């Protein structure tokens, strides 16, 4: 340790910004895909990743448009799940009200497109505005929550209350006086009839009904979002998030304004919940207050907890798996499916508190560790 005293304790903001500019290298960004906060690295993982993407990519060739469109429905939910993973799994703040953002953005998309239509790619602008509204709400709500130092179970209670208030409010908008422009909110029955996402396409339009093109669009979005979030949680910002999750007091006494980081994570995660809301609404041309109710609010927590909240990959796999199981069970009756869902959560909490996917990864690591230790190359790290 030389020249300990030569650097002043805290460089000025300008110094740090200059350092940041000098240090910026695109490959550093890519290296973050493999960072410490996400499972999976190296050729084996990324090889598997490419293979899975290819399988998911060729699946529509072996199916019909209707089934593929229904599969695309699963994708619409993954953004809310990955967003909750960031807020809860990485930043350690359990929000029970992500559906508030889901509903806000979904309704916003409906109101905008019912009024303005779908020409000139406006549906995508509506998507952006819808997501932006969630970001704004997250900024306001998050400011009061985190700068008010609300945490733990109280955070869950407040966020849950917000989504339930939204649900209650929207449920009483059945009367004809509840219209915005030409869009009727329609109370408990929900809004219908908004256009799907629509791309200007050569001399016509590509209307993305739940069919193969929408499937590919959503698949691409899931992959981009997943990779971008991997970079995000492995960035310097992500480092601080996990530090806050592990020990908020320590993180603050390293000089971090933890409220800002929690707020940042909340905005990112809630915008993604909003994205799910828009995509869901555009997928089915339909949104109801139910999507912000207690039951809907609990679902993302189940997906993320069952998969493994502290890892994006585990969350993504877990969410898709649970959605698929749920859908399959619903064919035999939805009460039945609910019971199974509850049982699944219980089993997870009791036997694999880190989540089933992460539990399996742990088990595999433990087994291979045992194999290695019992093999010829043993004798290290046993103490």
């Amino acid at each position, binding site marked *: 340790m030389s020249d300990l005293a030569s650097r002043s*304790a805290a460089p000025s903001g300008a110094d740090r910004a200059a350092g940041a500019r000098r240090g910026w290298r695109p490959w550093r960004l890519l290296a973050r895909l493999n960072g410490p906060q996400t499972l999976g690295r190296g050729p084996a993982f990324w090889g598997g990743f490419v293979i899975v993407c290819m399988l998911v990519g060729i699946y529509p060739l072996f199916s019909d448009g209707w089934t593929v469109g229904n599969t695309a429905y699963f994708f619409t939910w993954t953004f809310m799940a990955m967003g909750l993973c960031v807020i809860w799994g990485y930043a350690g703040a359990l929000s029970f009200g992500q559906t508030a953002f889901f509903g806000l953005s979904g309704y916003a998309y409906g109101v905008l497109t019912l009024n303005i239509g779908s020409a000139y790619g406006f549906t995508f602008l509506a998507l952006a505005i819808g997501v932006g509204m969630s970001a704004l709400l997250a900024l306001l709500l998050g400011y009061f929550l985190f700068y008010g130092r609300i945490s733990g179970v109280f955070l869950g209670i407040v966020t849950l209350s917000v989504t339930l208030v939204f649900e209650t409010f929207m449920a009483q908008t059945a009367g004809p006086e509840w219209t915005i422009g030409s869009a009727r909110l329609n109370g408990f029955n929900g809004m219908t009839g908004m256009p799907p996402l629509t791309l200007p396409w050569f001399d016509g339009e590509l209307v993305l009904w739940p069919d193969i093109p929408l499937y590919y669009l959503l698949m691409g979005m899931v992959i981009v979002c997943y990779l971008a979030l991997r970079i995000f949680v492995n960035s310097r910002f992500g480092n601080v998030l996990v530090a806050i999750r592990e020990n908020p007091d320590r993180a603050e*006494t390293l000089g971090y304004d933890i409220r800002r980081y929690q707020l940042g994570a909340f905005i990112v995660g809630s915008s993604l919940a909003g994205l799910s809301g828009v995509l869901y609404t555009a997928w089915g041309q339909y949104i109801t207050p139910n999507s912000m109710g207690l039951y809907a609010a609990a679902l993302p927590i189940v997906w993320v907890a069952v998969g493994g909240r502290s890892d994006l990959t585990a969350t993504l796999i877990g969410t898709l798996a649970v959605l698929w199981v749920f859908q399959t069970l619903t064919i035999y009756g939805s009460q039945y499916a609910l019971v199974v869902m509850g049982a699944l959560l219980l089993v997870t909490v009791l036997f694999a508190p880190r989540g089933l996917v992460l539990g399996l990864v742990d088990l595999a690591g433990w087994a291979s560790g045992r194999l290695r230790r019992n093999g010829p190359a043993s004798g290290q790290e046993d103490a």
Partner: protein
Amino acid sequence: MAILETRALEKNFGGVFVARAINFEMQPGEIHCLIGPNGAGKSSFFRLILGQHQPSAGTIWFDGQEITPLKSFQRIRLGISVKFQVPGIFKALSVWQNLEIGLQYHMQGDSLSAEIRQVLDFIELTDQATERAGNLSHGQQQWLEIGMAMSVKPKLLLLDEPTAGMSPQETAKTGEMVRTLNAEGMSILAVEHDMTFVRQIAQQVTVLHFGEIFAQGTIDQIVADERVAKIYLGKTNEA
């Protein structure tokens, strides 16, 4: 100008004083030890300096600036760093990451990695860099936290019982570390029970008792003070 000064600092919890009329002063470049019986208010004094407790009365000054109204992270940014009594490391993260999180505020890229390697070398944890911090021995966890605290090169380093649970060899090694840091200009305020360690490092000693400054002086003056022996030293010498 004092590096750290408190004026009439007071903190009470519903009538119980953990700090009472503390007028404390410490000069730049000094190693100052804070001793006193269990519950004397040593850790509370740290929490007051760090802004984790708001004082009931009085002011705190750091490096010529009043910091009483500042938030915890703002005080840290002025150049204060701390190792807590209960290990304040991120147990689920690797040793490397623990250091990275502290240091990335100040640098990045290659200089960040180089600095982390230097710190690892200094705290003798190079071989444990990828180990989960929670898996380290107790002494190593203490060193890791000292490493986190000193890596950011604070002007003032607060150490709350840095040698608790360490073997005599580890304690001696910690003393060397503290002196190396001090030789390079860092002011250090340490809470300590181990009088051998205090003797090894301290230039000035303050005794706290029931939240008040009970005695102050050089280590020899303190050890010679019979009043101090009665409330504190006598006990630890037997233990």
